[in-house]
């Protein structure tokens, strides 16, 4: 446990010392929140969709965790490129613990950022409809962040450079985000888009948060949590398997 704690602590220390990282990682979701929230909000309302900010905030929270975790994966590549990873790989500690401790650290920073976005959204008039559901929403964010952090570390383990990682970001993470229910209601989407969003696991996390925070559900909370559970298991397994295979 001690080893996992110190690796977790390392991530927290690095995070709190890098002010630019905190601001940078908050900047993107905020931009989305402001530009889309105000830009599309009025049309959305006129089209009868209701309050768009309310609809959007859960999506933006998921965006924060999704990109936060990927950003964290870049840190792992950094460790790999600049040698720190080797220090942990020759230590008498199992890979599983190294990955878990570090990924928990990465997830903690991501959850913190998501919480920050949540708080900032209050300034735009967002309010959760039922505060009693907020702890469960937090749990959803924690699980999703941890799964993504494992995924990011696993990816970093098999990708050798930043360019490769960037490519994955472009071809995997962006589509996963934009082709989910994060930004638009999928019930009105064209059939192809609707289909893609329905098989995209990101949609289910968005839907879970939307259900819990503003009481708008598409798939139903049970299905959302089931898909989230499967996602966590699959991504964590992927992370562990890839990370175990690292050779320097």
């Amino acid at each position, binding site marked *: 446990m001690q080893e996992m704690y*110190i690796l977790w602590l*390392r991530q927290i*220390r690095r995070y709190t*010392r890098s002010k630019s990282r905190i601001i940078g990682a908050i900047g993107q979701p905020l931009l989305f929140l402001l530009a889309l929230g105000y830009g599309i909000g009025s049309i959305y309302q006129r089209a009868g969709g209701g309050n768009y900010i309310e609809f959007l905030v859960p999506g933006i929270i998921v965006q924060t965790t999704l990109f936060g975790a990927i950003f964290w994966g870049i840190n792992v590549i950094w460790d790999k490129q*600049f*040698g*720190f990873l080797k220090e942990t790989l*020759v230590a008498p500690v199992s890979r599983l613990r190294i990955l878990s401790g570090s990924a928990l650290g990465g997830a903690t920073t991501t959850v913190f950022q998501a919480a920050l976005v949540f708080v900032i959204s209050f300034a735009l008039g967002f309010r959760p409809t039922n505060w009693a559901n907020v702890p469960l929403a937090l749990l959803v964010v924690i699980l999703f962040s941890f799964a993504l952090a494992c995924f990011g570390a696993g990816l970093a383990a098999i990708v*050798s450079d930043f360019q490769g990682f960037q490519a994955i970001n472009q071809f995997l993470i962006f589509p996963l985000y934009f082709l989910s229910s994060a930004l638009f209601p999928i019930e009105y989407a064209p059939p192809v888009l609707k289909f893609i969003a329905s098989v995209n696991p990101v949609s289910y996390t968005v839907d879970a948060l939307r259900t819990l925070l503003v009481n708008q559900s598409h798939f139903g909370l049970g299905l959302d949590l089931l898909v989230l559970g499967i996602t966590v298991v699959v991504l964590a397994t992927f992370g562990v398997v890839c990370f175990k295979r690292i050779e320097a």
Partner: protein
Amino acid sequence: MEAMSAVIRASQLTKKFKNFTAVNNISFTVQQGGIFAFLGPNGAGKSTTIKMLTTLLRPTSGEIDIAGHNVLTEQDAARSSFGIVFQDPSLDDELTAYENMELHAVLYHLPRKDMKQRITELLTLVELESRRDSQVKTFSGGMKRRLEIARGLLHHPQVLFLDEPTIGLDTQTRNLLWDYVKKLNKSENMTIFLTTHYLEEAEMVADRIAIIDHGTIIASGTTAELLKQTKTKNLEAAYLSLTGKTLRDEEVSAREAFRMRARTRRMR
């Protein structure tokens, strides 16, 4: 009797990458308390061998024992018995010197109560105690190297691996560094396994030398033995007569090129 005191024993070690054989059936032993220099041109198989010895790479075939532990089957015990200073910096720049040491101490299961004292002791040894709470990114190349050595010693290893530890350092720092190494070797009877491209350094500190080229060990012995074998006057001449004078163009992968740029930037 000699085999009894061997602290590193590699036998019939081979590493193949796809259809390229980086290390081809090499065997050697390093005696307890010795300073062993492992030399060879770029791409000869030095780094691959060190990586196999230190559990970072799995050999295709062959056996390695470190301090009596098989590195493949008793991985953690073997890992606890050696310290390593990698060719590339492997510190966390954002953390302080103390935090880097602390992290290592916990990963190597040092008892909490001895930890502080041991860290202070080693930071004092490498003359970094006054900078213990500075972030490593504010350190010079030489200071980072010293810190890495201190870190490698934290868990009382029996063997210390030094992979090109003096690369990019100025003459003063290099001399100081080898002085530490010799001192440690004497005072703690610590076995040193080193690689370097500076042959005068190897000649100065090592009591045994092995030269690897094209994946096989082409010569080994004391400096005197190598000079006698090649009828030369210094190690550099002996080395060149053994390995030839042609340049080795190592295939540099994108990753290594990247690291190299980073290293030169950091050493400034």
